């Protein structure tokens, strides 16, 4: 059969099914195949908080969106060109993410009364019409039946056979986008090295799906993504949590100090602890603490003992760590706190992204308690930002909160693998043995960092703690003048970090009509939206902040160079209000969304156009 090959710049595919259907793996294999063939990719897992909610229900639907393109891809895409729905619940909860005239592939074997009942439909309901999918190109594939048929010759039970039906769906998608099967097959060979039967099973099924798609009339066209070129280099895929862990390990190697991580498991931050726990070969010490407070307190103890110390958490955990953060500020020890933000307040939306911990990170402690607050903007960027957070913590002797979020933590993107020789040295102010007259709170004049004398070093015995310190000796004192001086110098120490961080960059013209301001994990969407409008000749620029406290030195100058400024965040305006506090005379517009979802490029473009058109 001759099918028409259509060329396209990029395509978005969303895999959805029951949380036991293996949709995360299916999506990952699809993304990897594209990446290995030199395309840009961005992925977004969208899964429920429950590990296995009741089968076939809306609560149990797990999704994985992949955006592939010929060039750089910065977001997982707003809406999909192809939706794979393994059951009616998956279709119902994902129909809203399909583009008009897009393709929808369903496992029609599960579009039966029993499954319909689980989502409140009757067997004769027209689910496609009810979900406004009438214009979509629906492919009703008997995926379950065909999977079993493919495996007729294998001596395994039906349940086991059906476990590979996701590979049948993946085979269909590989055909649809002219992607080779070789990468997925290699994965099976590695994954099932000890169970060769499963290598065969998965290969047979994925080929079955591929051939099925090639043969049926229902698929008239296939697509090829045009390669427009990526920057040269050796790439790998990386998720935000993995990159965060590796950035911290890199900082440990560069500083020559052992890495200690004290953490309590919490979604969506746990991946960092897991990644670090695996790296004993690089000397990483991890301690799975009894609670969040013990996580940070063990880290503070290890920092006192001369380690690069880290604790990783998410919003509710950061709340529990507040008092200990104050202790780290008071004792002026280096400490990195990674907060992988999720929807709040309270338990909130554990698996959904949000940027609503900013105010907590800035101010959520008793007393005048300044520390460095910074953020990572994409999965791969987590590496460089974690490295920088550790460098700043150690060289300035201060805790640093690094804000990530569930979107970039679990999302992945291709990353040009850097060389460690290209990264700067990290030189903590350690005190050498034999130093005479060590005073714990004597500071270097430039950074105002105190010096770090590690227990076990002869002759440097000293005592520090949470009580207010004498300005030089560090012994406890309630002297009023001294307290004022210490409050001021702790603030000044953090403020001076501005001299050691990069100036804020602008994407676009250095002055003009509209400046879009963002921070953290929304970078991909803001960058794509602004880029699109710049291509259309619109006078728009983007300032995406990584450093929040202190702000880059040129922040005010930038904000004064545009007619209108709009601050876009996945919260109710925390960064906007922070900027207003710092620059009270600059007027800011806001675009906020608190739905546990990332922005869409479409909604951003519409909003920005509305402002530009009004000027």
């Amino acid at each position, binding site marked *: 059969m001759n099918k028409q090959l259509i060329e396209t710049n990029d395509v978005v595919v969303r895999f959805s099914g029951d949380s036991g259907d293996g949709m995360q793996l299916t999506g990952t294999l699809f993304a*990897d195949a594209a990446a*290995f063939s*030199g395309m840009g990719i961005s992925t977004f897992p969208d899964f429920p908080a429950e590990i296995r909610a009741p089968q076939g229900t809306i609560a149990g639907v797990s999704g994985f969106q992949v955006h592939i393109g010929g060039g750089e891809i910065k977001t997982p895409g707003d809406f999909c060109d192809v939706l794979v729905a393994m059951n009616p619940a998956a279709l119902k909860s994902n129909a809203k993410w399909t583009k008009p005239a897009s393709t929808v592939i369903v496992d029609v074997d599960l579009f039966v009364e029993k499954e319909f009942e689980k989502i409140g439909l009757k067997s004769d309901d027209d689910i496609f019409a009810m979900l406004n999918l009438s214009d979509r190109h629906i492919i009703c594939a008997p995926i379950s039946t065909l999977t079993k048929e493919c495996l007729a010759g294998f001596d395994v039970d039906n349940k086991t056979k059906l476990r590979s039906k996701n590979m049948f769906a993946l085979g269909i998608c590989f055909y649809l986008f002219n992607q080779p099967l070789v*990468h997925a097959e290699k994965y099976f060979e590695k994954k099932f090295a000890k169970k060769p039967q499963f290598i065969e099973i998965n290969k047979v099924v994925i080929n079955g799906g591929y051939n099925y798609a090639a043969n049926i009339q229902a698929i008239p066209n296939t697509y090829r993504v045009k390669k427009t070129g990526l*920057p*040269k*280099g*050796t*790439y*790998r*895929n990386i998720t935000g949590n993995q990159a965060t862990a*590796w950035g911290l*390990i890199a900082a440990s*190697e560069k500083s020559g100090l052992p890495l*200690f991580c*004290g953490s309590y498991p919490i979604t969506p931050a746990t991946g960092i602890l897991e990644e670090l726990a695996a*790296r*004993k*070969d*690089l000397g990483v*010490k991890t*301690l799975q*603490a*009894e*609670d969040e*407070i*013990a996580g940070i*307190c*063990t880290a*503070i*103890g*290890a*920092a*006192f*003992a*001369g*380690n690069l*110390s880290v604790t990783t958490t998410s919003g509710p955990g950061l709340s529990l760590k507040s*008092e*200990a953060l*104050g*202790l780290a500020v008071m*004792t002026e020890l280096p400490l990195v706190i990674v907060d992988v933000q999720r929807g709040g307040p309270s338990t909130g939306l554990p698996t959904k992204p949000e940027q609503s911990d900013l105010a907590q990170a800035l101010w959520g402690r008793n007393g005048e308690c300044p520390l460095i607050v910074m953020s990572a903007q994409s999965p791969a960027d987590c590496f460089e930002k974690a490295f920088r957070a550790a460098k700043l913590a150690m060289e300035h002797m201060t805790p640093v909160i690094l804000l990530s979020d569930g979107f970039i933590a679990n999302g992945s993107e291709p990353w040009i*693998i*850097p060389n*460690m020789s290209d990264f700067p040295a990290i030189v903590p102010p350690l005190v050498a043995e034999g130093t005479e007259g060590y005073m714990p709170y004597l500071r270097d004049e430039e950074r105002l960092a105190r010096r770090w004398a*590690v*227990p*076990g*070093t*002869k002759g440097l*015995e*000293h*005592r*520090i*703690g*949470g*009580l207010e310190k004498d300005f030089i000796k560090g*012994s*406890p004192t309630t002297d009023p003048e001294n307290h004022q001086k210490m409050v001021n110098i702790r603030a000044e120490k953090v403020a001076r970090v501005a001299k050691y961080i990069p100036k804020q960059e602008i994407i676009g013209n250095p002055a003009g009509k509209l400046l879009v301001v963002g921070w953290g994990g929304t970078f991909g969407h803001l960058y794509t939206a602004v880029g699109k409008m710049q291509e259309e000749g619109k006078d728009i620029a983007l300032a995406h902040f990584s450093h929040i406290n202190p702000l880059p030195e040129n922040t005010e100058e930038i904000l004064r160079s545009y007619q209108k400024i709009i601050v876009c965040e996945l919260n109710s305006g925390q960064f906007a209000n922070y900027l207003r506090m710092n620059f009270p005379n600059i007027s800011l517009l806001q675009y906020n969304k608190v739905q546990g979802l990332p922005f869409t490029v479409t909604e951003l473009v519409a909003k920005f156009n509305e402002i530009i058109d009004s000027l």
Partner: protein
Amino acid sequence: MSEYISQDFKSDQEVKWCPGCGDYAILAAVQKALPEVARQLNYEKERFTFVSGIGCSSRFPYYVNTYGFHGIHGRASAIATGVKVGNPKLSVWQITGDGDALAIGGNHFIHAVRRNIDINIILFDNQIYGLTKGQYSPTSRLGTVTKTSPYGTVEHPFVPGEIVLGARGTFFARTLDIDVKLTAECLVASAKHNGTSVTTVLQNCVIFNDGTHKAYADKSVRDEHTIVLRHGEPMIYGKDRDKGLVIDHENLRLKSVKIGENGITEKDILVHNMENPNPGIHMMLVNMKFPDLPVALGVIRAVKDSTYNKNVCEQIERSRRHPIYATVDALLRSGETWTVE
């Protein structure tokens, strides 16, 4: 060989406890024990690190001339754990009180004990909150009248030793603040023990709970109302060393008997075995209460087991000998990579 004297462990800070506070005697015992620990274990002074939480006792690190860290309320066990894992060569001492360790810090306390991390915990038990000026604590006896229990407490107290054994502790000792010699002896034993050592010091708060331990700690009655246990020796006590402990088989509990009466000889008396892995007898010993039975003092339990810090170090050493990735550069290049030219 390291030779130190008590004076080496005195800091230049003015000690600010109330006159007559039991903490002075504990400080003296620690300063007496440390030179002995250094001598027996060949430790340099710079290895000693004291960590505390919040409360009267937790001011302690300021008064010993070692590395010291004054933490926040209840978290000393967690901080001390981090210090030990971060730098396993250190001799880590945690100073805490009945409120700090057993109320706000209960969770960290039991988990430190469970992990058997090699830290030495000295728990000052005065059965009261002193620094906040006299509220009941988790070890205050039922009915204790304090500012927050003007009608007497209505809650049952913890027995610290019982918690330690319940959390699978490997070392527990109990001593009296005024018995500097016994305290020092327990602390030296604690330092020599690999694993979490908990030494409870029954301490007097002269201002808010004066005399709480007087019924057994006072010199005039101490010999009759306490028993000092020593490994391998019969459990004999009394001014004339004429009383001992036996098992009351009928009720499966400990019983005090008089040697020479009812045909009892020294041979019938239980011999203390602190190394018995079975905590049964140790549990009975820590739960002996005056006036029914003498209060047990000395090292009650000291059993060998692997320690958290050693296990961590061994895993790391093993992994480093056969690394999957020996450098960060190798790690970054692991798994699937591809090149765009």
